[in-house]
């Protein structure tokens, strides 16, 4: 999941590789922006190719989708479904974050409990939780609470595991400092544990964020009458290709934007912790 971490060895090296006509090195950032732009264009071209190759049976081409999307954004119906998804997702993420941080801290501080729980949590993380969705539906009934519960099932474990790992790998000096200064448990958590583990906690929150979104969307796609996931499946069933393509576009853009924002936040807070 840490794809960007490996870039470091190349950065110094490739700075001198690229020079413009006067022999001055081209700013690295500009080359990268150009490459990213080319990549963006090729994604659009691929999208257009698939769209026109299938004659819009499966995927509508980019421009048509964009036009449709702008029309869709002006309808009340879309915002109603979007609000349902957003509400379920925000609640699911908030619950996952709160419970996950508390459990992670607990299991990190209590070594024995942590050792007992970690493989169980990791095992739960890797099983196909979709198969458990009918159970969630049977327990919570059709509707909002089932979606939220399913989102929490997806988002809770990574947040717990990342927090647990961060607290466990904390330098013992920090703990001893807290003891020497006679900090109360509350202050130890607030002044020592949280600042020292912030990077890992943010990483866990970022993964928990995307997974609880996934959980909520799967819940809506399987059995629901509201939300973007329902709209997507419904658009497909009614052969309304621009609708389903537009919904997919919205979800992809929002997910990437949120993830990028959280990555930037992590980078911004990172140097203080190191």
């Amino acid at each position, binding site marked *: *999941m*840490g*794809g*960007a971490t*490996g*870039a470091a*060895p*190349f950065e110094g*090296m*490739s700075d001198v590789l690229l020079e413009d006509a006067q022999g001055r090195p081209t700013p690295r950032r500009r*080359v*990268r922006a150009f*490459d990213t732009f*080319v*990549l963006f264009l090729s994604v659009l071209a691929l999208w257009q190719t698939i769209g026109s190759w299938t004659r819009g*049976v*499966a*995927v509508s081409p980019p421009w048509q989708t964009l036009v449709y999307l702008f029309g869709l954004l002006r309808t009340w119906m879309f915002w109603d479904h979007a609000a349902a998804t957003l509400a379920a997702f925000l609640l699911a993420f908030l619950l996952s974050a709160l419970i996950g941080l508390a459990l992670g801290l607990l299991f990190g501080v209590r070594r*024995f409990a942590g*050792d*007992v729980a970690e*493989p*169980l949590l990791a*095992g739960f993380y*890797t*099983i*196909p*939780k*979709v*198969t*458990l969705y*009918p*159970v969630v*539906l*049977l*327990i919570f009934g059709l509707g909002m609470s089932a979606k939220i519960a399913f989102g929490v099932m997806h988002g809770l474990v990574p947040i717990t595991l990342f927090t647990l790992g961060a607290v466990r790998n904390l330098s013992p000096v920090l703990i001893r400092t807290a003891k020497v200064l006679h900090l109360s448990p509350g202050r130890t958590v607030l002044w020592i544990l949280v600042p020292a583990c912030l990077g890992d906690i943010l990483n866990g929150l*970022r*993964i928990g964020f*995307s997974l609880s979104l*996934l959980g909520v*969307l*799967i819940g809506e*796609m*399987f059995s629901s009458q509201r939300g973007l*996931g329902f709209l*997507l*499946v419904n658009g*497909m069933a009614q052969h309304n*290709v621009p609708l*389903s*393509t537009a919904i*997919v576009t919205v*979800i*992809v853009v929002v*997910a*990437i934007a*949120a*993830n*990028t924002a959280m*990555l930037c936040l992590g980078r911004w807070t990172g140097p203080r912790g190191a």
Partner: protein
Amino acid sequence: MKRQHAVVFVRIAVLAVSIIFLEVCCRAGIVDPLTVIPPSEMLASMIDRVGSGEMNTSIMSTFSTIVFAFVLAIGFGILAGALIHRSPRLRDVVDPLLASYYSVPTFIFYPLLVALLGLGKAPLVVLGVLSAAPAVMISTLSGLDGISPVLIKLARVHRLSAARTFSWIVLPAALPRLFTGLKLALSYALIGVIAGEFILSGTGLGYDISFAYQSFDNRAMYGTMLFVLSIAVIANGFLYAWEGRLARRRSRG
């Protein structure tokens, strides 16, 4: 060592107590049998359904799809990872993409894939590859990054051929991190395929579960569910144990 035994013991005890607790609650009528059936019933139903052979077609269909997607994801992921590793410029573009890839719920592409490829195995395989290949790619990149330059120099000093450099130096050095990717790829392929079958499909174990749910057949649903989850846990546990063995062999030298 003694503490380790205690940890394993407590873990098993926690699991056993929760299963027994659920069993007692179900038998005592605290939990409605229309919601959850007793764990012993789930096990019995699983044994019935596997023993009678009524699930054989689903099992074959699901697992062949998963294996196919897994193998394709490994091949494609390693190839792409190795190619990207050779070009720093490409790497600069791809790294941010990989970093945010898993934030997009890949699953939302499934309805589009079904419309594109029809309601067969093809969209399931593509979905499995889409969710598993980037994990292999990321771990290939990090495995190749982790090779110490000294090792490559050593290969040059010994004038090893490219093939030997690969099989004697690169592969053993990159394997531990690559293995992490393979583990993730297996669980992602499994999740992708079964989720796809669950939402929209006409065959496979995922479809069996959603069909049983929709026809209020709780016994069949829990039996199939237990089967799928057991297979997932066993497959992941197997890879986990294998990884541990590899790590021990490395540390022995």
